[in-house]
């Protein structure tokens, strides 16, 4: 199994979920994160004091999948999240050794 982690622009969440849904993936876990990268932030002024807000709000999606589905899924996320603009984000793939469904105790790909 693999864990696919995608950092995307927040307003792309619905598109990505739809794309994954079409591939039969329904489970995922989403976290609100602050992204630092090439995409620059902005400067806010409060009564003349400048505050550089250099992070961008992003969403981190984590999807555990069977190893053989990785390419399809990466591709689907990429298509759905792509706007062609800087800051579109990243997809990371990392190994996953085991998965357990807490409710039933099932393990491995069945647990997903």
């Amino acid at each position, binding site marked *: 199994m693999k864990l696919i982690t995608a950092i995307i622009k927040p307003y792309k969440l619905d598109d990505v979920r739809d794309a994954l849904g079409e591939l039969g993936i329904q489970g995922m876990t989403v976290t609100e994160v602050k992204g630092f990268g090439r995409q620059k932030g902005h400067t*806010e*002024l*409060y*009564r003349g*004091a400048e*505050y550089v807000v250099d992070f961008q709000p992003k969403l981190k999606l984590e999807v555990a999948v069977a190893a053989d589905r990785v390419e399809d899924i990466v591709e689907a996320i990429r298509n759905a999240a792509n706007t062609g603009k800087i800051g579109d984000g990243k997809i990371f793939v990392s190994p996953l050794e085991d998965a357990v469904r807490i409710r039933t105790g099932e393990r491995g790909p069945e647990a997903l």
Partner: protein
Amino acid sequence: MKRLIALLLLSTPALALAQAENGPNGADTAWIMTATALVLFMTLPGLALFYGGLVRSKNVLSVLMQCFTIAGAVSVVWFLFGYSLAFGGNGAWIGDFSKLMLVGVGHDTLNGTIPESLFMMFQMTFAIITPALIVGGFAERMKFSAMLAFSLIWLVVVYAPVTHWVWGGGWLQEMGLYDFAGGTVVHITAGVAALVAAMVLGPRKGFGSSALMPHNMTMTVAGAGMLWVGWFGFNGGSALAADGYASMAILVTHLSAAMGTLTWLTIEWIRYGKPSMLGAATGMVAGLGTITPASGFVGPGGAVVIGLLAGIVCFSATNFLKKVLKIDDSLDVFPVHGVGGMLGTLLAGVFSATTLGVFSGYGFAEGIGSMAGQLKVQAIGVIATLVFTAVATWIILKLLDAVIGLRVSDEEETQGLDLSQHEERGYDL
């Protein structure tokens, strides 16, 4: 203060007495009770929210707590002897102990046309908000114990005497100083004290290098709205009557706030390309603070100009303090209230003139024949208040620093005052 006007207009004591002997006026009483509620509302929750939203999340309760505790402690001290020091007797410099614990004040004791208990309460709400304003200068770094000690000592040493000078029959009042609702008494004293406190305590950790951003602008805006509304009681109530003077004071107050708002946001729009909510709210407070001393003496045309100048001058002062002098007056009390109070006290001497056409006001103080004459008195009032407040505040703080220490430790400051001083957190959403 209407009292002041009464004193000036009815120059013989006999006449003033006669008015008092007319007995209580229900309408005036109704209005001043309302105004008293409005001025308390300015501090709690108005100012508390306005200030609370501007600090970082980890310090929000400390600011609310400071405003609340000041309200409680000042009220008790005011009752015990503060009111007497400010309004007892006829000394030039300070009151006396004749009204200690309101001895002899009953249901039917009057001050002018309203019960004295009410006059004392109305004044108490001013005595509360003034030290509460100072909180903005030392926010996010002062020990709670030191804050409390400072506020009470300052109330007695600075606020009570200055109030006596200006409204209690003291030397500035005798001289004909025009300060309708507290340009000198409230705003200059608070602004200067905040500046001195900011300098004595030193800047917050990270000032100038990292972001010390407002954590909740919606809270600040809620507070700003309450300040605007409450200020009708502050300035309108200072007429001490429900009449055309009070109404006009409210109108000029409102117009100055409106112009202050528009001016500040316009400057930002031009300079930075975007107008900001905080800018609008700050301009509003600048407009309100600046019109305060003038609010009983100027007309609506003058008020618009005063609001405009308030926006321009206080905006510049804020930038100057922060960018040039690099003083960390955390919530800009001096540039907004201090500078606004000085500006307004001086402009009261200008726009009270009856000869400015549509910008005319309602005349100079009794016995003062020219704008130059009135302006001179105003300038003396400004300078005296400024110098006295600065020196006295500096001494109080230095003494307190030596005795109990003013500032929390570095670690406590990093952790935030909410946890380090009160073991509480603002939010657990």
